[in-house]
């Protein structure tokens, strides 16, 4: 079975029989599962449900976790090597149900927009380490690039942004790529 690598940003971690240990309700494995796939799911869900409040995404993530763990524990994961695809598939299905108010998953408290969500770095203690490294990575950028990246993060219109800053689309990619690489180096140091 392929290793499920947890503890993002890291090199390979010795993890054998991940799904098996998840089925056995190993607490550490469950935490690793939530940490790794939680981050990936939040990226996908945020992209697929723009404008939704953070807790909407978090509710979908939690429901996804519940369904995946239930499936694992009842032996319904037939291809452990494609476990990532399975988690993604469940997440997308839950998102569709949540978006249409269908199925057994109903959203609660959607009006409480100020409720902090785990995609809010300040609200997530586990993310503090990444927050500090990301802040450091951003500090390493030229002020203009930092401003540009922040505008990108705030979902500004990319074409307008390029025009305003006198840059091209590929420049945005390169900028994000460099900042990302810097963050990965910082995180590798921290995880060492």
């Amino acid at each position: 079975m392929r290793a499920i690598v947890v503890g993002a940003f890291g090199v390979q971690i010795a993890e054998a029989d991940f799904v098996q240990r998840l089925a056995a309700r190993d607490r550490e494995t469950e935490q690793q599962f939530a940490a790794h796939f939680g981050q990936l799911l939040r990226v996908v869900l945020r992209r697929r449900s723009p404008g939704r409040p953070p807790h909407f995404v978090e509710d979908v993530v939690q429901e996804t976790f519940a369904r995946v763990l239930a499936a694992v524990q009842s032996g319904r994961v037939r291809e452990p090597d494609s476990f990532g695809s399975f988690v993604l598939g469940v997440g997308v299905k839950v998102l569709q149900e949540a978006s249409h108010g269908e199925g057994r998953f109903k959203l609660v408290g959607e009006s409480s927009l100020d409720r902090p969500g785990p995609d809010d770095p300040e609200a997530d203690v586990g993310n503090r380490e990444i927050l500090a490294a990301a802040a450091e990575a951003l500090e390493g950028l030229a002020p203009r690039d930092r401003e540009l990246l922040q505008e990108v993060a705030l979902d500004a219109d990319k074409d307008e942004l390029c025009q305003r800053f006198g840059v091209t689309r590929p420049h945005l990619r390169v900028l994000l790529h460099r900042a990302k690489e810097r963050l990965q180096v910082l995180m590798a140091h921290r995880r060492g």
Partner: protein
Amino acid sequence: MPDETMDVASHPRLTEQYLLGELGERESARFEEHFFNCRICSDEVIAASQLLNVARKLPRARTQEVPAATSAPAARTWWKRLFLGTGGLVWIPRFAALAAVPMALLIAYDRAVLLPQVRDELALRDRPGAVDPILLRPATRGKVRQIVVDAGTRNVTVALELPGAAAGATLSAAVESEAGQEVIPRFAVASPRPTEPLIIQFPAHRLAPGLYQMIVRAEDRKQSGVPPLDLRRYPFAIVTR
């Protein structure tokens, strides 16, 4: 099929394109399928998205030299038009002054707490094996690489040179003591790209001082009932400082 169907190497900056919304719906879905199953790409996606998350949350004063209090000419945004259009220019300095207080607090927190934390962590980079992988050579030259651990050592990263035939194979690794006892049980490892070494991180601090070897095996033959094949053995010694 998951990641195997996507040729990531032929799509440079795929992560950036995905996060910048430059991929079509179908390509995005394929890439999601890929990075949910790929160690390297999932790390990249997480890193870049966390970066954007933090950039989004940072006070804008950090990335813009000064809030728009005195620079009215390029009034593009709705709130600038609102203020200027209603004679609210007078209020802008007050607004900026009020906004400056939490910004100053956030910046002070960042500089006084977060950045020192980062610097402390970066100080760990000099620890052997913490950042730069320790190269382990196969057991053919009669020399044993020493891995020095001290009270602060946690995981150690090693780089293993693999034979070319290992590229693309299903691999596993394990650590055995000198007496042949498996002290770190067999675990699956993703095969590296053809020209790259196999990078493995393992909890060296859990090993007592002594001689060990890391064994890399090809697992593919298991499907046909043949036991895994030992590809290479990499001896090393754990030494305490």
